[in-house]
Protein backbone atom coordinates (compact mmCIF):
# COMPACT_ATOMS: atom_id res chain seq x y z
CA UNK A 1 0.00 0.00 0.00
CA UNK A 2 1.01 3.60 -0.56
CA UNK A 3 3.02 5.26 2.19
CA UNK A 4 0.58 8.10 2.61
CA UNK A 5 -1.84 5.83 4.47
CA UNK A 6 -2.21 5.97 8.24
CA UNK A 7 -2.80 2.57 9.81
CA UNK A 8 -5.14 2.34 12.78
CA UNK A 9 -6.29 -0.58 14.89
CA UNK A 10 -9.57 -0.69 16.81
CA UNK A 11 -10.68 0.13 19.44
CA UNK A 12 -9.70 3.74 18.74
CA UNK A 13 -8.39 6.04 21.45
CA UNK A 14 -8.51 9.82 21.81
CA UNK A 15 -4.85 9.93 20.72
CA UNK A 16 -5.71 7.99 17.55
CA UNK A 17 -8.39 10.42 16.46
CA UNK A 18 -6.52 13.55 17.55
CA UNK A 19 -3.92 13.00 14.86
CA UNK A 20 -6.44 12.64 12.02
CA UNK A 21 -7.26 15.52 9.69
CA UNK A 22 -9.69 15.74 6.77
CA UNK A 23 -8.37 14.17 3.60
CA UNK A 24 -6.12 11.73 5.49
CA UNK A 25 -6.29 8.25 4.04
CA UNK A 26 -6.56 5.57 6.68
CA UNK A 27 -6.36 1.78 6.69
CA UNK A 28 -8.47 0.30 9.46
CA UNK A 29 -7.63 -2.96 11.18
CA UNK A 30 -9.38 -4.96 13.86
CA UNK A 31 -13.09 -5.14 14.60
CA UNK A 32 -15.81 -2.82 13.32
CA UNK A 33 -19.58 -3.13 13.72
CA UNK A 34 -22.24 -2.68 11.09
CA UNK A 35 -25.46 -0.77 11.57
CA UNK A 36 -27.78 1.17 9.33
CA UNK A 37 -31.28 2.67 9.53
CA UNK A 38 -33.28 -0.01 11.34
CA UNK A 39 -30.41 -1.10 13.63
CA UNK A 40 -29.78 2.50 14.73
CA UNK A 41 -33.45 2.90 15.55
CA UNK A 42 -33.37 -0.26 17.68
CA UNK A 43 -30.12 0.65 19.42
CA UNK A 44 -31.46 4.02 20.47
CA UNK A 45 -34.74 2.43 21.60
CA UNK A 46 -32.71 -0.04 23.68
CA UNK A 47 -30.89 2.88 25.33
CA UNK A 48 -34.25 4.54 26.04
CA UNK A 49 -35.32 1.42 27.90
CA UNK A 50 -32.07 1.44 29.87
CA UNK A 51 -30.75 -1.67 28.10
CA UNK A 52 -27.23 -2.34 26.85
CA UNK A 53 -26.12 -1.97 23.26
CA UNK A 54 -25.26 -5.18 21.38
CA UNK A 55 -21.54 -4.31 21.55
CA UNK A 56 -19.14 -2.18 23.59
CA UNK A 57 -19.48 1.28 22.11
CA UNK A 58 -16.33 2.70 23.77
CA UNK A 59 -13.69 3.22 21.11
CA UNK A 60 -15.85 1.42 18.54
CA UNK A 61 -16.37 2.15 14.87
CA UNK A 62 -19.78 1.72 13.26
CA UNK A 63 -19.92 1.05 9.53
CA UNK A 64 -23.15 2.13 7.86
CA UNK A 65 -23.64 -0.85 5.57
CA UNK A 66 -26.15 -3.51 4.63
CA UNK A 67 -24.04 -6.12 2.87
CA UNK A 68 -25.13 -8.39 0.05
CA UNK A 69 -25.34 -12.11 0.91
CA UNK A 70 -22.02 -13.98 0.85
CA UNK A 71 -21.29 -16.26 -2.05
CA UNK A 72 -19.93 -19.66 -0.99
CA UNK A 73 -16.26 -19.19 -0.08
CA UNK A 74 -16.64 -15.49 0.72
CA UNK A 75 -16.98 -14.21 4.32
CA UNK A 76 -19.41 -11.52 3.13
CA UNK A 77 -20.99 -10.21 -0.05
CA UNK A 78 -20.41 -6.76 -1.52
CA UNK A 79 -20.19 -4.32 1.36
CA UNK A 80 -19.90 -0.64 0.50
CA UNK A 81 -21.19 2.26 2.59
CA UNK A 82 -24.75 3.55 2.61
CA UNK A 83 -25.68 7.25 2.77
CA UNK A 84 -24.96 8.58 6.23
CA UNK A 85 -27.40 11.46 6.69
CA UNK A 86 -30.15 8.99 7.53
CA UNK A 87 -28.22 8.06 10.68
CA UNK A 88 -27.81 11.75 11.69
CA UNK A 89 -30.74 11.70 14.15
CA UNK A 90 -29.14 8.79 16.06
CA UNK A 91 -25.39 9.32 15.83
CA UNK A 92 -24.89 12.12 18.42
CA UNK A 93 -26.35 9.88 21.14
CA UNK A 94 -23.90 7.08 20.32
CA UNK A 95 -20.98 9.51 20.00
CA UNK A 96 -21.70 10.83 23.49
CA UNK A 97 -21.38 7.26 24.78
CA UNK A 98 -17.87 6.84 23.40
CA UNK A 99 -18.24 5.93 19.73
CA UNK A 100 -14.97 6.94 18.08
CA UNK A 101 -15.61 6.43 14.41
CA UNK A 102 -18.33 6.12 11.77
CA UNK A 103 -17.93 4.98 8.18
CA UNK A 104 -20.40 6.00 5.49
CA UNK A 105 -20.82 8.18 2.44
CA UNK A 106 -22.16 11.69 1.89
CA UNK A 107 -22.35 14.61 4.31
CA UNK A 108 -23.43 14.86 7.95
CA UNK A 109 -25.61 17.31 9.86
CA UNK A 110 -24.18 20.14 11.96
CA UNK A 111 -25.36 18.28 15.09
CA UNK A 112 -23.21 15.28 14.18
CA UNK A 113 -20.21 17.46 13.30
CA UNK A 114 -20.58 19.28 16.64
CA UNK A 115 -20.80 15.99 18.54
CA UNK A 116 -17.65 14.79 16.74
CA UNK A 117 -15.80 17.85 18.03
CA UNK A 118 -17.20 17.69 21.54
CA UNK A 119 -16.60 13.97 22.16
CA UNK A 120 -13.71 13.34 19.75
CA UNK A 121 -15.20 11.11 17.10
CA UNK A 122 -14.22 10.92 13.42
CA UNK A 123 -16.48 10.44 10.41
CA UNK A 124 -14.75 8.41 7.72
CA UNK A 125 -15.88 8.10 4.13
CA UNK A 126 -15.60 4.87 2.18
CA UNK A 127 -16.14 4.69 -1.56
CA UNK A 128 -19.82 4.25 -2.26
CA UNK A 129 -20.53 1.65 -4.89
CA UNK A 130 -17.17 -0.07 -4.43
CA UNK A 131 -18.73 -2.92 -2.45
CA UNK A 132 -16.92 -5.77 -4.17
CA UNK A 133 -13.54 -4.12 -3.61
CA UNK A 134 -14.26 -3.21 0.03
CA UNK A 135 -15.47 -6.75 0.77
CA UNK A 136 -11.92 -7.90 0.01
CA UNK A 137 -10.75 -6.14 3.20
CA UNK A 138 -13.31 -7.93 5.35
CA UNK A 139 -11.97 -11.22 6.66
CA UNK A 140 -14.77 -12.37 8.90
CA UNK A 141 -18.40 -11.48 9.45
CA UNK A 142 -20.80 -12.60 12.13
CA UNK A 143 -24.32 -11.41 12.96
CA UNK A 144 -24.43 -10.41 16.63
CA UNK A 145 -27.86 -8.76 16.92
CA UNK A 146 -31.21 -8.14 15.23
CA UNK A 147 -30.90 -11.07 12.87
CA UNK A 148 -34.52 -10.59 11.77
CA UNK A 149 -33.49 -7.36 10.03
CA UNK A 150 -31.72 -9.34 7.29
CA UNK A 151 -29.21 -7.08 5.54
CA UNK A 152 -29.77 -4.51 8.30
CA UNK A 153 -28.71 -6.82 11.18
CA UNK A 154 -25.74 -5.77 13.35
CA UNK A 155 -22.59 -7.62 12.31
CA UNK A 156 -19.16 -7.87 13.83
CA UNK A 157 -16.60 -7.55 11.07
CA UNK A 158 -12.92 -8.33 11.23
CA UNK A 159 -11.14 -6.05 8.79
CA UNK A 160 -7.64 -5.84 7.39
CA UNK A 161 -6.44 -2.58 5.86
CA UNK A 162 -9.96 -1.39 5.21
CA UNK A 163 -9.52 1.84 3.17
CA UNK A 164 -11.28 5.03 4.30
CA UNK A 165 -10.71 8.77 4.17
CA UNK A 166 -11.30 11.32 6.94
CA UNK A 167 -14.35 13.43 6.01
CA UNK A 168 -15.06 15.10 9.36
CA UNK A 169 -12.26 15.39 11.90
CA UNK A 170 -12.44 16.31 15.59
CA UNK A 171 -11.52 19.90 14.74
CA UNK A 172 -14.80 20.64 12.97
CA UNK A 173 -13.38 20.46 9.44
CA UNK A 174 -15.42 19.04 6.59
CA UNK A 175 -13.82 17.46 3.52
CA UNK A 176 -16.94 17.93 1.36
CA UNK A 177 -16.89 21.67 2.02
CA UNK A 178 -13.12 22.13 1.72
CA UNK A 179 -12.73 19.86 -1.31
CA UNK A 180 -15.47 21.69 -3.11
CA UNK A 181 -13.97 25.10 -2.34
CA UNK A 182 -10.65 23.97 -3.74
CA UNK A 183 -12.00 22.77 -7.10
CA UNK A 184 -14.92 25.12 -7.67
CA UNK A 185 -14.60 27.08 -10.94
CA UNK A 186 -16.29 30.47 -10.88
CA UNK A 187 -17.00 32.09 -14.23
Amino acid at each position, binding site marked *: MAEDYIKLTTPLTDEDVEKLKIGDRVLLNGVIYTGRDAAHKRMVEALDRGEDLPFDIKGAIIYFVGPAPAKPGWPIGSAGPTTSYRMDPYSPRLIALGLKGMIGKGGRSQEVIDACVKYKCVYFGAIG*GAGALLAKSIKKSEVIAYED*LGPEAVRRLEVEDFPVIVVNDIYGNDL*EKEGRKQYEVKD
Partner: protein
Amino acid sequence: MREVNVSEVTEAIKKLCMDANYYLPEDVYNALQEALKKEKSPVGRSVLEQIIRNADIAREERVAICQDCGLAVIFMEIGQDVKFVGGDLKEAIFEGVRQGYKEGYLRKSTCHPFTRANVGDNTPPVIHYDIVPGDKVRIVIAPKGGGSENMSRVMMLKPADGLEGVKDYVVQRCSESGGNPCPPVIVGVGVGGTFERSAFLAKKALLRPLGRPNPDLELAAAEQEMLERINKLGMGPMGWGGTVYALAVHFEMEPCHIASLPCAVNINCHAARHKEVTI
Protein backbone atom coordinates in the same frame (compact mmCIF):
# COMPACT_ATOMS: atom_id res chain seq x y z
CA MET B 1 -49.69 -14.06 -33.39
CA ARG B 2 -46.52 -15.46 -31.85
CA GLU B 3 -46.82 -17.40 -28.65
CA VAL B 4 -44.35 -16.74 -25.87
CA ASN B 5 -44.39 -18.93 -22.80
CA VAL B 6 -44.17 -16.88 -19.60
CA SER B 7 -41.59 -19.33 -18.25
CA GLU B 8 -39.20 -17.84 -20.83
CA VAL B 9 -39.82 -14.45 -19.29
CA THR B 10 -39.00 -15.78 -15.82
CA GLU B 11 -35.75 -17.30 -17.06
CA ALA B 12 -34.77 -14.15 -18.92
CA ILE B 13 -35.45 -11.88 -15.94
CA LYS B 14 -33.60 -14.13 -13.52
CA LYS B 15 -30.49 -13.99 -15.71
CA LEU B 16 -30.81 -10.25 -16.34
CA CYS B 17 -31.03 -9.49 -12.60
CA MET B 18 -27.74 -11.29 -12.02
CA ASP B 19 -25.88 -10.05 -15.09
CA ALA B 20 -26.95 -6.44 -14.55
CA ASN B 21 -25.58 -6.57 -11.02
CA TYR B 22 -22.26 -8.20 -11.95
CA TYR B 23 -21.34 -6.54 -15.23
CA LEU B 24 -21.04 -2.77 -15.43
CA PRO B 25 -22.09 -1.67 -18.95
CA GLU B 26 -19.15 -0.98 -21.22
CA ASP B 27 -20.14 2.61 -21.94
CA VAL B 28 -20.13 3.40 -18.22
CA TYR B 29 -16.82 1.62 -17.74
CA ASN B 30 -15.26 3.60 -20.59
CA ALA B 31 -16.70 6.86 -19.27
CA LEU B 32 -15.04 6.16 -15.90
CA GLN B 33 -11.70 5.63 -17.67
CA GLU B 34 -12.18 8.95 -19.47
CA ALA B 35 -13.06 10.63 -16.18
CA LEU B 36 -9.83 9.31 -14.68
CA LYS B 37 -7.88 11.15 -17.40
CA LYS B 38 -9.79 14.39 -16.78
CA GLU B 39 -9.96 14.43 -13.00
CA LYS B 40 -7.60 16.98 -11.43
CA SER B 41 -7.88 16.00 -7.76
CA PRO B 42 -5.52 13.25 -6.58
CA VAL B 43 -8.16 12.02 -4.12
CA GLY B 44 -10.71 12.04 -6.95
CA ARG B 45 -8.39 10.04 -9.19
CA SER B 46 -7.82 7.49 -6.48
CA VAL B 47 -11.61 7.16 -6.03
CA LEU B 48 -12.06 6.59 -9.77
CA GLU B 49 -9.28 4.02 -9.84
CA GLN B 50 -10.93 2.09 -7.05
CA ILE B 51 -14.34 2.28 -8.71
CA ILE B 52 -12.83 0.85 -11.88
CA ARG B 53 -11.04 -1.89 -9.91
CA ASN B 54 -14.32 -2.66 -8.19
CA ALA B 55 -16.04 -3.16 -11.55
CA ASP B 56 -13.24 -5.50 -12.60
CA ILE B 57 -13.58 -7.60 -9.44
CA ALA B 58 -17.36 -7.79 -9.81
CA ARG B 59 -17.08 -8.92 -13.43
CA GLU B 60 -14.33 -11.46 -12.85
CA GLU B 61 -15.77 -13.00 -9.70
CA ARG B 62 -19.43 -12.58 -10.55
CA VAL B 63 -20.33 -10.68 -7.41
CA ALA B 64 -22.50 -7.60 -7.06
CA ILE B 65 -20.87 -4.33 -8.14
CA CYS B 66 -22.59 -2.67 -5.20
CA GLN B 67 -24.20 -4.20 -2.12
CA ASP B 68 -27.31 -2.18 -2.94
CA CYS B 69 -28.54 -4.39 -5.75
CA GLY B 70 -31.43 -2.03 -6.15
CA LEU B 71 -35.11 -2.20 -6.70
CA ALA B 72 -35.58 -4.05 -9.96
CA VAL B 73 -36.94 -1.53 -12.45
CA ILE B 74 -38.15 -3.45 -15.49
CA PHE B 75 -39.15 -2.09 -18.88
CA MET B 76 -41.27 -4.53 -20.89
CA GLU B 77 -41.66 -3.66 -24.57
CA ILE B 78 -44.23 -6.09 -25.83
CA GLY B 79 -44.90 -6.56 -29.52
CA GLN B 80 -48.63 -6.28 -30.24
CA ASP B 81 -48.51 -9.59 -32.08
CA VAL B 82 -47.28 -11.50 -29.03
CA LYS B 83 -49.59 -13.79 -27.10
CA PHE B 84 -48.36 -14.88 -23.67
CA VAL B 85 -49.17 -18.47 -22.72
CA GLY B 86 -48.42 -20.73 -19.79
CA GLY B 87 -49.49 -18.50 -16.90
CA ASP B 88 -49.74 -15.01 -15.45
CA LEU B 89 -47.17 -12.65 -17.00
CA LYS B 90 -46.87 -10.42 -13.92
CA GLU B 91 -46.31 -13.41 -11.65
CA ALA B 92 -43.71 -14.74 -14.10
CA ILE B 93 -41.83 -11.44 -13.86
CA PHE B 94 -41.98 -11.48 -10.05
CA GLU B 95 -40.69 -15.06 -10.04
CA GLY B 96 -37.75 -14.08 -12.23
CA VAL B 97 -36.81 -11.35 -9.76
CA ARG B 98 -37.18 -13.74 -6.80
CA GLN B 99 -34.96 -16.38 -8.38
CA GLY B 100 -32.39 -13.93 -9.72
CA TYR B 101 -31.88 -12.15 -6.41
CA LYS B 102 -31.80 -15.39 -4.42
CA GLU B 103 -29.57 -17.47 -6.66
CA GLY B 104 -27.34 -14.54 -7.55
CA TYR B 105 -26.53 -13.67 -3.91
CA LEU B 106 -28.00 -10.23 -4.45
CA ARG B 107 -29.27 -8.06 -1.63
CA LYS B 108 -33.01 -7.88 -1.14
CA SER B 109 -33.89 -4.27 -0.52
CA THR B 110 -37.69 -3.96 -0.57
CA CYS B 111 -39.43 -3.34 2.74
CA HIS B 112 -42.70 -2.21 4.32
CA PRO B 113 -42.65 1.60 4.24
CA PHE B 114 -43.45 2.01 7.94
CA THR B 115 -42.53 -1.15 9.85
CA ARG B 116 -39.45 -1.41 7.57
CA ALA B 117 -39.82 -5.22 7.64
CA ASN B 118 -37.89 -6.62 4.67
CA VAL B 119 -40.15 -8.31 2.08
CA GLY B 120 -37.41 -10.91 1.75
CA ASP B 121 -37.35 -11.61 -1.97
CA ASN B 122 -36.91 -8.13 -3.49
CA THR B 123 -40.43 -8.07 -4.88
CA PRO B 124 -42.31 -6.16 -6.06
CA PRO B 125 -40.27 -4.90 -8.98
CA VAL B 126 -41.33 -1.67 -10.69
CA ILE B 127 -42.68 -2.68 -14.11
CA HIS B 128 -43.25 -0.32 -17.04
CA TYR B 129 -45.19 -1.92 -19.90
CA ASP B 130 -45.15 -0.59 -23.43
CA ILE B 131 -47.02 -2.08 -26.38
CA VAL B 132 -45.08 -1.73 -29.63
CA PRO B 133 -45.44 -3.05 -33.20
CA GLY B 134 -44.03 -6.50 -33.95
CA ASP B 135 -43.92 -9.92 -32.32
CA LYS B 136 -40.90 -9.61 -30.03
CA VAL B 137 -40.59 -8.95 -26.32
CA ARG B 138 -37.77 -6.65 -25.26
CA ILE B 139 -36.94 -6.69 -21.58
CA VAL B 140 -34.66 -4.11 -19.99
CA ILE B 141 -33.68 -4.30 -16.33
CA ALA B 142 -32.21 -1.36 -14.49
CA PRO B 143 -31.56 -2.16 -10.81
CA LYS B 144 -31.83 1.21 -9.03
CA GLY B 145 -30.04 1.95 -5.78
CA GLY B 146 -31.61 3.92 -2.96
CA GLY B 147 -28.79 6.42 -2.43
CA SER B 148 -29.08 8.05 -5.82
CA GLU B 149 -32.86 7.61 -6.05
CA ASN B 150 -33.23 9.54 -2.78
CA MET B 151 -31.52 12.54 -4.36
CA SER B 152 -34.02 12.62 -7.26
CA ARG B 153 -36.93 15.06 -7.43
CA VAL B 154 -39.91 16.17 -9.49
CA MET B 155 -40.40 19.94 -9.59
CA MET B 156 -43.45 21.59 -11.11
CA LEU B 157 -41.77 24.67 -12.53
CA LYS B 158 -43.73 27.63 -13.87
CA PRO B 159 -43.93 28.00 -17.67
CA ALA B 160 -42.21 31.38 -17.28
CA ASP B 161 -39.15 29.60 -15.82
CA GLY B 162 -38.41 28.18 -19.29
CA LEU B 163 -35.33 26.26 -20.32
CA GLU B 164 -33.12 28.44 -18.11
CA GLY B 165 -35.27 27.52 -15.12
CA VAL B 166 -34.85 23.83 -15.94
CA LYS B 167 -31.07 24.14 -16.20
CA ASP B 168 -30.85 26.07 -12.93
CA TYR B 169 -33.00 23.51 -11.16
CA VAL B 170 -30.92 20.57 -12.38
CA VAL B 171 -27.64 22.21 -11.35
CA GLN B 172 -29.07 23.16 -7.96
CA ARG B 173 -30.33 19.60 -7.39
CA CYS B 174 -26.83 18.23 -8.02
CA SER B 175 -25.28 20.89 -5.82
CA GLU B 176 -27.56 19.88 -2.95
CA SER B 177 -26.92 16.18 -3.47
CA GLY B 178 -23.17 16.32 -2.78
CA GLY B 179 -21.60 12.94 -2.12
CA ASN B 180 -24.89 11.21 -1.27
CA PRO B 181 -25.67 9.64 -4.67
CA CYS B 182 -22.17 8.13 -5.16
CA PRO B 183 -20.70 10.48 -7.75
CA PRO B 184 -19.60 10.42 -10.51
CA VAL B 185 -23.27 10.36 -11.39
CA ILE B 186 -25.38 10.34 -14.52
CA VAL B 187 -28.17 12.89 -14.44
CA GLY B 188 -31.47 12.06 -16.13
CA VAL B 189 -33.70 15.05 -16.84
CA GLY B 190 -37.30 14.65 -17.94
CA VAL B 191 -39.37 17.65 -18.97
CA GLY B 192 -42.95 17.48 -20.17
CA GLY B 193 -46.12 15.46 -19.81
CA THR B 194 -47.61 15.33 -16.35
CA PHE B 195 -46.09 14.98 -12.90
CA GLU B 196 -45.45 11.23 -13.23
CA ARG B 197 -44.63 11.34 -16.94
CA SER B 198 -41.72 13.70 -16.35
CA ALA B 199 -40.32 11.27 -13.78
CA PHE B 200 -40.67 8.42 -16.25
CA LEU B 201 -38.86 10.43 -18.94
CA ALA B 202 -36.03 11.18 -16.52
CA LYS B 203 -35.73 7.50 -15.67
CA LYS B 204 -35.75 6.54 -19.36
CA ALA B 205 -33.06 9.13 -20.05
CA LEU B 206 -30.75 7.12 -17.79
CA LEU B 207 -30.99 4.15 -20.15
CA ARG B 208 -29.56 6.08 -23.09
CA PRO B 209 -25.96 4.98 -23.81
CA LEU B 210 -23.29 7.42 -22.64
CA GLY B 211 -21.66 9.46 -25.37
CA ARG B 212 -24.88 9.79 -27.33
CA PRO B 213 -26.31 13.30 -26.99
CA ASN B 214 -29.97 14.06 -27.59
CA PRO B 215 -30.54 14.26 -31.40
CA ASP B 216 -32.28 17.62 -30.93
CA LEU B 217 -29.47 20.17 -31.13
CA GLU B 218 -31.00 22.58 -28.63
CA LEU B 219 -31.45 19.82 -26.06
CA ALA B 220 -27.96 18.49 -26.74
CA ALA B 221 -26.54 21.96 -26.11
CA ALA B 222 -28.51 22.17 -22.86
CA GLU B 223 -27.13 18.76 -21.81
CA GLN B 224 -23.59 19.96 -22.41
CA GLU B 225 -24.13 23.26 -20.61
CA MET B 226 -25.65 21.57 -17.56
CA LEU B 227 -22.82 19.03 -17.44
CA GLU B 228 -20.20 21.77 -17.46
CA ARG B 229 -21.98 23.83 -14.83
CA ILE B 230 -22.39 20.79 -12.55
CA ASN B 231 -18.74 19.82 -12.81
CA LYS B 232 -17.59 23.39 -12.18
CA LEU B 233 -19.18 23.18 -8.73
CA GLY B 234 -16.03 21.31 -7.73
CA MET B 235 -17.69 18.47 -5.84
CA GLY B 236 -15.83 15.70 -7.68
CA PRO B 237 -15.90 11.92 -7.20
CA MET B 238 -17.69 10.93 -3.96
CA GLY B 239 -18.13 14.65 -3.26
CA TRP B 240 -14.63 14.91 -1.78
CA GLY B 241 -13.60 17.66 -4.19
CA GLY B 242 -12.62 17.43 -7.84
CA THR B 243 -13.55 18.15 -11.40
CA VAL B 244 -15.74 15.18 -12.37
CA TYR B 245 -19.01 14.99 -10.48
CA ALA B 246 -21.20 13.99 -13.42
CA LEU B 247 -20.31 11.75 -16.35
CA ALA B 248 -23.25 12.95 -18.42
CA VAL B 249 -26.58 14.76 -18.41
CA HIS B 250 -29.31 13.12 -20.47
CA PHE B 251 -32.29 15.31 -21.25
CA GLU B 252 -35.61 14.01 -22.63
CA MET B 253 -38.54 16.25 -23.48
CA GLU B 254 -42.20 15.94 -24.49
CA PRO B 255 -45.08 18.42 -24.78
CA CYS B 256 -46.79 19.33 -21.50
CA HIS B 257 -49.99 21.05 -20.35
CA ILE B 258 -50.31 24.77 -21.19
CA ALA B 259 -50.37 25.53 -17.46
CA SER B 260 -47.28 23.54 -16.45
CA LEU B 261 -43.61 22.84 -16.81
CA PRO B 262 -42.95 19.52 -15.04
CA CYS B 263 -39.25 18.91 -14.54
CA ALA B 264 -37.88 15.67 -13.10
CA VAL B 265 -34.29 14.99 -12.13
CA ASN B 266 -33.40 11.32 -11.70
CA ILE B 267 -29.85 10.85 -10.51
CA ASN B 268 -28.01 7.61 -11.13
CA CYS B 269 -24.81 6.60 -9.39
CA HIS B 270 -21.67 5.37 -11.15
CA ALA B 271 -23.05 1.85 -10.64
CA ALA B 272 -25.35 2.63 -13.56
CA ARG B 273 -26.54 -0.89 -14.19
CA HIS B 274 -28.80 -2.05 -16.94
CA LYS B 275 -29.08 -5.12 -19.11
CA GLU B 276 -31.50 -6.16 -21.81
CA VAL B 277 -32.62 -9.10 -23.86
CA THR B 278 -35.09 -9.63 -26.69
CA ILE B 279 -37.21 -12.75 -26.79
